[in-house]
């Protein structure tokens, strides 16, 4: 197995899908000549042609809307929203249209569509290049929302998403693109949608998280291991469907739960995780569920100080773990 960063894993997966299935095509802003703003699709247009790597007009609703139509007609579009912050004009197409196509036609029309978008902070992206959008979409039946955190999972889940018969919102944390490296299996490789990963096994407390925070949580767990606290880290990978079984099993095992995400706390994914544990394992717990999340302000500002204050860090996660362990 070769070691790659997350960006390379995404790139390789897209390339394999384009090469192996003529129905697959990519459309989005700057995906062609420029090869995507992070260079994920660099060289694709030369290799696959302008008909299959489409530089779209600057119009997000029609990027998704046109992709929906192509999907209904039997193709496998991969639509890119350049930054998650730009997805709002396409909200109707994703929530009102793609997610309901199968349901409203009683299975007559389907929408096998992948929407890829980079999200998250830690890159000085300011108010409009740093948001997390998962909570806005994971509420929606008919959609799948994935957020891999490792290169192998990015490959495995993106391959599964492209093969899926339903619309998938595929979230790539932009800080992980070049920061996170790992071994990636060669050839076709899938990770099942809806299965969490135990990133670190432990017995004293559970951290339930996803995305960049998985790596921060593992780092924090290693740090406090020296203090005699053995933390388990659960990486959801798939936000909808959510692996309640693994969440509840971990909570039941360690009896203490810390939920960590970068997205705003109020109404975030952590609320659903907490509710699942409260519904199924409340009396197994030795401490109240704790949440460490982005604050309830609109987004992280451009200044370094705003960004640092907004994002959970390994140190703050370690502090929250210590506090939970002491309860």
């Amino acid at each position, binding site marked *: 197995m070769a070691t790659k960063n997350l960006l390379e894993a995404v790139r390789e997966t897209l390339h394999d899908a384009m090469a192996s299935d003529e129905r697959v095509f990519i459309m989005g802003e700057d995906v062609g000549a420029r090869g995507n703003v992070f260079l994920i699709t660099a060289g694709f247009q030369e290799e696959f042609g302008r008909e299959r790597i489409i530089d779209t007009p600057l*119009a997000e609703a029609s990027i998704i809307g046109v992709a929906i139509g192509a999907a209904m007609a*039997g193709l496998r579009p991969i639509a890119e929203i350049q930054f998650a912050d730009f997805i709002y004009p396409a909200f109707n197409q994703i929530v*009102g*249209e793609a997610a309901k196509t*199968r349901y*409203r036609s009683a299975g007559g029309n389907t929408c096998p569509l992948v929407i890829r978008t980079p999200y998250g902070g830690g890159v000085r992206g300011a108010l409009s290049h740093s948001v997390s959008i998962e909570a806005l979409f994971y509420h929606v039946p008919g959609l799948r929302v994935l957020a891999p955190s490792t290169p192998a999972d990015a490959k495995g889940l993106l391959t599964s998403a492209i093969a899926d018969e339903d619309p998938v919102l595929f979230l790539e944390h932009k800080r992980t693109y070049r920061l996170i490296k790992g071994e990636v299996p060669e050839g076709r490789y899938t990770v099942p949608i809806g299965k969490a990963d135990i990133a670190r096994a432990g017995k004293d407390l559970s951290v339930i998280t996803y995305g960049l925070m998985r790596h921060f949580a593992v780092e924090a767990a290693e740090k406090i291991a020296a203090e005699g606290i053995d933390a388990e880290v659960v990486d959801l990978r798939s936000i909808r*469907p959510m692996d309640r079984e693994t969440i509840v099993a971990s909570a039941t095992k360690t009896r203490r739960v810390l939920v960590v995400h970068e997205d705003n706390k109020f109404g975030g994914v952590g609320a659903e995780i907490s509710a699942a544990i409260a519904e199924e394992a409340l009396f197994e717990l030795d401490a109240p569920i704790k949440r460490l999340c982005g604050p309830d302000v609109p987004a992280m500002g451009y200044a370094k100080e705003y960004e640092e204050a907004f994002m959970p860090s390994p140190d703050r996660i370690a502090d929250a773990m210590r506090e939970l362990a002491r309860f």
Partner: protein
Amino acid sequence: MKSEPKVRASLPEGLTPERLLEMYYYMVLTRTCDDRGFALNRQGKIPFAATCQGHEAIQVGAAFALRRGVDWLVPYYRDTCMALSFGVTPREQLMCLFARKGDIFSSGRQFPNHYSVPDRQIASISSIIAAHVTHAVGIALSIKMRKQPAVVLTSFGEGSTSEGEWHEALNFAGIHKVPIIFLCENNEYAISVHQSLQMGVKNVADRAAGYGFPGVICDGTDPVQSYETVRDAVERARSGGGPTLVEAKCYRAMSHTSDDNQLTYRTQDEIEAVKTRDPIPRFENWLKERGMLDDDTIAELKAKALRDVNDATDWAEAQEPPGERDLYTHVYGSGPLS
């Protein structure tokens, strides 16, 4: 006995006397279905009905300009006549009015007239105005990518042309010259709001200039002119010439839906005036003048339409409604709901 023709003009290319009579029948059938929907609503048997009265001519003309089984239709919720003329049956239509489990469009999930007939290439739409126009462009893009001989026709009212997604769709289509016909059925009202409050231009067709393809206008109450206009646009699309925006000037003879009262925003005089433009008697006269139709045939066809719609009504009413378990099907192709 057919009377001696008063007019001996040659028939439009692609239309034979048989096809013209078929067009006439679909208009009569649609009117019968439409009236039945409102009657069932007033009887309390169905919760909602939407009318296409005043739109029949453009709808039948457009459907006849397409090739069934080859071309795609992405219609909107006022296209009963277009759907019936493109292969939807009266029973299928009544099943959606009654919201039965066996309704092939949505299994009783959507409002009436939200068609989805995959085996006849009629694509599903929601009620969100103009969202489907982008989907139609995506279907046309797939046709172009796969070099298929098909075209797409998508339709909408003039109010739809205010939506951003409508502009995005036409802009994309103009760039990629996909095989599509954008058909605006301009009846001057978006529920209660007149065209003059939707746009600063006189004609929707004028907007085509902004997307780099032609915009044409036809009398949407004349089925033959409507057919010819759409046929030309279809030929253009099929031969690689790209999109056309067709604006069919028509009118809405009734309230927006069974839940609307047009007297709150339209005068009685205006309502009476539009009734004189009814496309059905107008087409009857056109056919009579050419010796293709007489009063006996009119009575016969209207009786047949009534029989068909009565049969469809009785049949659909007797069908099974959805059960509670049907709520949970077709959310995803596989896997858990959450």
